[in-house]
């Protein structure tokens, strides 16, 4: 682990963060029909320097919204997020620019994240230009960034356009763009979900390698525990805007505690023809963020739900090495 002793150990501190959206528009509001979607609803966690944390959950669980809050691409509607001791809500103007160079996003779909009309050189020059890096230094920085993500013979890529690169190569360019300003903190949002299995491993290996070499603090957002396990030592499981379980990834893989985590772990297919085909311990249906159940948001799909789950929101409680938000613990 790459902890610099002078600085405080915690890089990111999230306290009761909320991101509520008003949906339904003006007409619905007039008729009193607008609703609030609680994309993130009272989430608390700290991330230490050099730590890699997986944000795990299904679509609509708030994992991407949480990532956007951490990067100040969205402002919280409640609670607070501190980055290196500074409250993100207070970060403005030139300090925002500074923050942007320290915290970066690695996008999900490399084909959407890069302007198809920009050459790779132009794509990678842009952040340098924004950060005020003199023209004379840029080429050198670009080559170094491409070497960092292990694109062989980087010079040959500079004048190419995105469509001339394979998906795996393009995702490395996306990574290079996020890393070119030497950030301390990166949020990777499902960075390999669009890639073929045979090249996925290569991109994940680069991600791990770069993170270790630069001592990055990283958030890896995914719905696939097998991928999170490969890159993160700690995992936070989210469901409908709340944290269900938070702890060391290996513990979660081998002995999930929260009923939702149990279902998630059981659902991951493994390349083994002898695996179990037991029904998943979870109710059918997708979570509806407009209309979450009272009490525990997971209770309507939970096989162990009881009366207390409807009346009282379970708070995260320490269980061994973990925090679990469930009345069973």
């Amino acid at each position, binding site marked *: 682990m790459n902890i610099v002793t002078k600085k405080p150990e915690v890089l990111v501190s999230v306290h009761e963060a909320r991101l509520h959206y008003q949906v339904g528009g003006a007409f619905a509001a007039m008729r009193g029909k607008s609703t609030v979607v609680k994309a993130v609803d009272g989430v608390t966690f700290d991330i230490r320097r050099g730590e890699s944390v997986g944000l795990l959950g299904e679509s609509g669980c708030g994992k991407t919204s949480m990532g956007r809050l951490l990067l100040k691409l969205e402002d919280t509607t409640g609670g607070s997020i501190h980055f290196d001791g500074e409250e993100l809500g207070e970060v403005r103007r030139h300090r925002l620019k500074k923050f942007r160079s320290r915290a970066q996003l690695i996008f999900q779909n490399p084909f959407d994240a890069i302007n198809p009309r920009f050459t790779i050189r132009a794509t990678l020059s842009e952040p340098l230009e924004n950060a005020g890096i003199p023209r004379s230094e840029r080429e050198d920085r670009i080559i170094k960034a491409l070497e960092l993500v292990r694109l062989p013979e980087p010079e040959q890529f500079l004048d190419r356009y995105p469509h001339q690169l394979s998906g795996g190569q393009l995702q490395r360019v996306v990574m290079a763009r996020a890393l070119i300003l030497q950030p301390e903190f990166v949020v990777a949002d499902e960075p390999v979900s669009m890639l073929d299995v045979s090249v996925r*491993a290569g991109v994940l290996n680069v991600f791990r390698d770069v993170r270790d070499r630069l001592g990055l603090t990283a958030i890896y957002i995914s719905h696939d525990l097998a991928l999170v396990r490969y890159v993160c030592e700690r995992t936070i499981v989210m469901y409908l805007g709340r944290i269900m379980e938070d702890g060391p990834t290996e513990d979660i893989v081998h002995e999930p505690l929260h009923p939702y985590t149990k279902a998630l772990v059981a659902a991951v297919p493994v390349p083994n023809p002898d695996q179990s085909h037991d029904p998943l311990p979870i109710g059918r249906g997708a979570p509806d963020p407009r209309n979450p159940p009272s009490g525990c948001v997971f209770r309507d799909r939970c096989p162990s739900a009881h009366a207390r789950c409807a009346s009282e929101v379970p708070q995260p409680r320490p269980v061994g090495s973990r925090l679990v938000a469930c009345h069973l613990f």
Partner: protein
Amino acid sequence: MTEPLLSVRDLRVSYQVGRSFVHAVDGASFDIPKGSITGLVGESGCGKTTVARALTRVIADNAAITGGEILFEGRDLAKLPEREMNALRWRDIAFVPQSAMNSLDPVYTVEYQLGEVLRRRGGMDRRQARKRSEELFEMVGIDANRLNDYPHQFSGGMRQRVAIALALALNPKLIIADEPVTALDVIVQRQILDQLKELQVRLGLSVILVTHDISVVAYICDRTVVMYAGKVAESGTMQAALTAPSHPYTMGLRNAFPDLQGAASGVLTPIEGAPPNLANPPAGCRFKPRCPFALDVCGSEPPVVDVAPDHPVLCHRARESAALRIEAAKTETWMARA
């Protein structure tokens, strides 16, 4: 193996792109036994979707079946007149296209769309169609009172269930599903797969599941056909393909997969490089540029070798596969070429 339901022999499909031809499927042969689920696996651009579409002859305007046979119940679908082929679709062979959203029309209710198939193709009247629709919804686990809903009112997983109901409408013998669970979350994915398997067993269906995800195949398929660059690299039972993969590409795929059961410290090994451009494929074995075991002989067309009964492999070194498997399990083997 009993008499196959479908037998594909040396199938060739080409796309015309400008003045050149892309041979997306270049001599594919495999059998689909009755009452089995077969996984058609491979990465993007390997020709798996083209094969699936060619089986129902629903291919792009610039594509054509240029050779080979598709034998289905004694008839060659590749040469069947369009009118007879059309009579076969839905009734004998149903196709579930990639992403359920694309197979459903957003401006009609789901009942209307089911009814269209049931009345036009199944010759049912309105009342029979309604009854069958309710039956179908019950089969795929959706409440019948949602029949009047529009596609956007369903979640992704539910839409996929609707697409499966649609495919089942006229009791086909074979269902071809193109990446049916790719866009879905793990939990929904698993529930859909369980549903599909349950229906397949109950109705005695044959299913071809097109996917890039070998773990999905391992979960529900009995058999697999592994494609690479327009050719079938290897085919056989699931057990054979996973425990004794005999084509270096299949061996490589096994290594590239993150696994919840394996050791935590395990390192994933990618297959370096990318599949060849099919407008101008390399001579000989198409996997040669990425293969750690390539020899000079691989520059010539590889033979199909039966490494075991019902387990053909397209590789010059297929007979050495037991030894190659040991080498292929080591990361260094694949890194050496990088």
